[in-house]
């Protein structure tokens, strides 16, 4: 069971990490209800969070499966995570709207 949870964590890290990175881009920020350009502070926060989440995903993968399988799992799961973000932005963008709105108020 912890194995399955860790796998979920690895995927979640990759998915949320790429979601944050995508949101920091003007095109997706605007698409998600933000202004034409992503504000500097929100953009920096999103990029830092994005990279940190990807790193966390790698750490979890190495913890779960060791150096060999862990690095392989991470390198492939991030593609799955990124493609899931693409699918979300294309067909279920409203899932990410609340997060964007929250950041607008903070930024």
């Amino acid at each position, binding site marked *: 069971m912890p194995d399955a949870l860790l*796998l979920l964590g690895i995927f979640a890290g990759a998915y949320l990490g*790429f979601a944050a*990175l*995508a949101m920091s*881009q003007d*095109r*997706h920020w605007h698409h998600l209800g933000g202004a034409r350009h992503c504000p500097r502070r929100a953009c920096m926060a999103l990029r830092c969070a994005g990279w940190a989440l990807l790193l966390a995903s790698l750490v979890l993968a190495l913890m779960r*499966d060791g150096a*060999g*399988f862990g690095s*392989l*799992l991470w*390198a*492939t*799961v991030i*593609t*799955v995570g*990124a*493609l899931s*973000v*693409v*699918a979300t*932005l*294309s*067909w279920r963008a409203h899932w990410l709207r609340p997060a964007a709105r929250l950041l607008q108020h903070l930024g």
Partner: protein
Amino acid sequence: MEQGFRASMNWLHTWAGVVLGGLLFAIFWMGTLAVFDREIDRWMAPMIRLPAAEKPFSLESLRPLYETAAAAKSPFFSVGLPTDRDAAIRVLWSDQSGQTHRFIDPNTGAVLPDPGTLAGTRFIFPFHYMLHIRAENIGYWLVGLAAMAMMALCVSGVIIHRKIFTDFFTFRPDRKPRRLVLDLHNVTGVLGWPFHFLITLSGLVIFWSTYFPSAWQLTYNGDRLAFFADAYGNVVPKGRSGESGGMASFDAMASEARRVWEGSALRYVFVRNPGDAKSIVQIGRLDEGIVSSTYDAAYFDGPTGALISYKSGTAPVMSVQRFLAGFHFIQFRHWSLRWIYFGLGLTGCVLIATGYLFWLESRRKKHAQLGLKGVRIVEGLAVGSVTGMLIATAAFFVANRLLPLGAEAFGLDRAALEVWTFYLVWLATFAHAWARPQRAWMEQCWTVAALACAAALLNWITTGDHLVRSLSYRHLWPIAGMDILLLAGSAIAAVSALRLSRPSRVARVRHA
């Protein structure tokens, strides 16, 4: 300069893609299926849908088969032992009439009836790396050429991409077809890049001694066996003595091998020169717990059963090659990674297919105005390579379920009939694509949907393993997985066909 370089890379990307895209799609598709080759074996050969053995299997019960192989003067006698993915034991030897394959039930030791199919491990997997073209290694070289082209496509694709970071997550399904397929091509290409590049590179690295033969031929004076002995740690086999010799206990040798590897499980037993006084028994280690495929093996003198030598681990230089090979072969036990490989393999297929579609969509109008035939030719090639390959695969599965055991026709046995079905159907899809260019995509999508659905239904009718049943027994999960993927594939093909048959789309294609 910048413009010139990018233009030349664009030229390379376009031409390599158009000329070799069909071959690349076939290799990617078969490789993706080969991820589940053993599971496909179980689906196509119902007699090996066996539960895992409860008690250890005695290799001695294979002795009658060994004696048969020795009497037939077979140069080898090979036994594949059960793994997590494959409960049956696979025995192989050859005589004048060709190779004999037998499946053994590890619970009873019974020899199972001949399934009459090459299935996943003997048709789909070899198709992936040598296209079943044996003459002069042409198949290997064609796959190597396609792989080199894929590497060039991966690199040139990154160079010609105008907005790689801006478009990183961009897919706009509501846009015009030309934009939509380019988005899909870019997204699968950029996001799947690490996997596509590494899987291609590692595929090339596996066959380095085939593709760069001069390296070892010069060093070893053309002595292939001596080279393999150094590189992979194989013992150079002694020739036949011509005198007959006995064979020590297989079980004793197997337990000795387990002892030197500290209890590790075993993958195979391979006897060279069965029945000869100089027979050698090679026993392979099952190393499912690491990425690398190490080829660890122990060698025994056949008649006495004495351990000659054994190998664990790999020399530093080869360890990189073995890691890359292991990464490519996925003989390790990691179900999450196996499914991810399958999914990413499919993104490779989407990448190649959308590459073709973009080429076609961006030239359709211009070629029609100028009266050029390029679009028509390439469209036939693309349809036959993409949907045609899917139809041929589904027809292979349907033929497998329709042909009775022991079927023969036109002097061909059952396994050959399945393979001929595959090739003839594939050929027919090209003919169809060139004969009916306007409707080929749509009609072939409908055919995929019908055949894939029929395959899943025929599995139920001919074996009784419907989804409820196959999902409720652990040893039938591979069957359930295959049926679910067939039904899902059928649904996706049907949805695609429906979208393609929308009046606007058909009219647009027809006017072009």
